């Protein structure tokens, strides 16, 4: 690496090799009796901690003027003036982070006729809500939303800015972060404050959920994260809670808007799997597309939604929007029933926080059985029809 490298190996290096296994990224080799830091280095300073002779030095960039950025800002996504529940989860987590920092919690909402919604955000914990209410912001488009949010951040200078990792948030977040020249951590499942540095510690899955990484944004502001839906706890409303509601002007002339929406077809089934209290999912163990008839039957008697594991979607047995897991939706229902699903790490990432998990699987060694509240080892084609009958019978007695 050049002399500008953020990690420097001093001449006092003895080539002992203690740093090599300490490096989580496998970036260090010993060449000619001396540690060499390779390109995979992420400046995590594990090597410096491991070095017995203090020969590794971490050169960190100077921290400048970051203290003028204060407060936690939450983006309140809305559709047709209905606030997306992920915003309440962000307020729940945001309140916790703000309290730990002794800083205020802000929310920002954009749209048309959204002002009446601001009080709901106050009730859920926001100390101040910035409202950008304008017909030009009625439906989401990356261009105008980026202009407004980047402008709001530059003006209000929050130290943390959280966005829900919805389809909108995952498109909008990177655009805003790039505009503000700051870091963005995708799809976080854990957020807390480092007690010493007061930095936001952002934890997220990588490699399909096989590893977790904790990430910081040390030298730029705001510290931005998109946050996975259905992972954080929703802030409960506190009627009568007081907060400030600030209406902000929208300067339409200063806003770019290059892409136009020609048409929008709302999804057909109204019960989305992310909002359902009960989800009944089918996996590869169904054997064929028709197997989902049985899953629909059980979901039907329980009043739940139908979920699916990725292999069934890949096989074309069911549409993608039913997919539960890392590359599908995260669900957090009161009850999750997994039928013929082995429970890969990727699938677990999308459902393991469900209150009750019941598995029906032929293989008692399947990973799903290890995370289930109740795992029934058997053939789903024999168990599920009997279960449906029992529930129907029970209902007819009531």
């Amino acid at each position, binding site marked *: *690496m050049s002399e500008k490298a*953020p990690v420097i190996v001093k001449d006092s290096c003895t080539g002992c090799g203690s740093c090599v*296994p300490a490096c*989580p990224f*496998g970036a260090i080799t010993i060449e000619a009796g001396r540690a060499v830091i*390779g*390109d*995979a*280095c992420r*400046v*995590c300073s594990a090597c410096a901690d491991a070095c017995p002779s203090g020969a590794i030095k971490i050169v960190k960039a100077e921290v400048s003027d970051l203290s003028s950025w204060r407060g936690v800002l939450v983006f309140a996504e809305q559709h047709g003036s209905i606030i997306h529940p992920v915003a309440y989860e962000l307020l729940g987590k945001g309140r916790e982070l703000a309290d730990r920092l002794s800083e205020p919690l802000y929310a920002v909402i954009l749209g048309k006729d959204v002002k009446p919604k601001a009080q709901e955000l106050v009730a859920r914990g926001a100390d101040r809500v910035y409202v950008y209410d304008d017909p030009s912001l009625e439906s989401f488009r*990356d261009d105008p939303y980026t202009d407004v949010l980047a402008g709001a951040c530059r003006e209000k200078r929050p130290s943390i800015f959280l966005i829900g990792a*919805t389809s909108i948030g995952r498109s909008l*977040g*990177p655009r805003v972060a*790039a505009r503000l020249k*700051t*870091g*963005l951590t*995708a*799809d976080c499942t854990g957020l807390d404050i480092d007690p010493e540095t007061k930095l936001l510690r952002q934890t*997220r*899955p*990588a*490699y*399909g959920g*096989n*590893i*977790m990484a*904790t990430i*910081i*944004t040390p*030298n*730029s502001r705001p510290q931005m994260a998109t946050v996975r839906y259905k992972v954080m706890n929703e802030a409960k409303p506190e009627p009568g809670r007081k907060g400030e509601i600030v209406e902000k002007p929208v300067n339409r002339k200063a806003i770019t808007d290059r*892409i136009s*929406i*020609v*048409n*929008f*077809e709302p*999804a057909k089934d109204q019960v989305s799997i992310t909002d359902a209290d009960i989800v009944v999912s089918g996996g590869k163990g169904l054997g064929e597309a028709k197997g989902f008839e049985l899953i629909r039957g059980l979901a039907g008697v*329980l009043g739940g939604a139908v979920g699916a594991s990725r292999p069934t979607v890949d096989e074309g047995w069911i549409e*993608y929007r039913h997919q539960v897991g890392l590359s599908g939706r995260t669900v957090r229902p009161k*009850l999750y029933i997994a039928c013929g699903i082995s429970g890969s790490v990727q699938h677990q990432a999308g459902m393991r926080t469900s209150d*009750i998990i*019941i598995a029906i699987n032929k293989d008692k060694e399947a990973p799903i059985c*290890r*995370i*289930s*509240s*109740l*795992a*029934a080892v*058997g*053939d789903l084609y024999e*168990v599920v029809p*009997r279960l449906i009958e029992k*529930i129907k019978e*029970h*209902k007819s007695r009531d």
Partner: protein
Amino acid sequence: MGTGLNIVVCIKQVPETTEVEFDEATGRLKREGVAAVINPFDEFAIEAGLRLKEKYGGVVRALSMGPPMAEQALRDAIAMGADEGWLATDRVFGGADTWATSLTLALCVEKMGPFDIVICGLKTTDGDTGQTGPEMAEHLGVPHVCYVNEIGEVKEGKVRLRRNLDDGVETLEAPLPLIITVSKDINQPRLATLRGRLAAKKAEIKKMTNQELGKDPKELGLEGSFTRVVKIFTPPPPVGGEVIEGNPDELAEAIFQRLREEKVI
């Protein structure tokens, strides 16, 4: 579009499996012996680019950033039908987060000449962020559309696009040039042909170092990154409950009783 479309497809070389092994004691990822492939999501982007070229003419350039070995991913893209392979490779690009990666790729796209459309996969299987495409759009000052599952007609400098959002399907009209990320349901990526493989073998991969980009190295790679990974770990082990065996009737009864206990029914 008399001269056809200038299409750039961004691809990344990733480990073939996400089942990365990880030594809990040392906290180190074991990468030895894991084969490297084109990020599976990027194959849909390559296919989308090839279909656009087949319809409107033009050129498909595959672009990647990575170590010299990433050249193979570009050859694989050429084997599928891409016309050119461009590799941004320089030690100062290493260790980049999505900001620094998107900046480097954007500089490369500018260097490669005028473009009509840049196509990226939805995300990569290693980093799982999906941020590089939209961040590139910001660097290049062009609009972007994520999750595209259908590319419609390109006419008079505009393109019709369809995409799946959480609550429905949206049809958009966007001006060129622009960046899109495509979802897995956009197409079925083709396999490389024998002829393609031969072409790929002979193709010259164009290398770009920071010499060509001329950027202050402080703004690139690890040094130019705003985020830092401070810890990696394996997810906590799951907590299990009761595992029951028996005949189908007993199993159904046990589940039924549990549903009643939990007041589901």
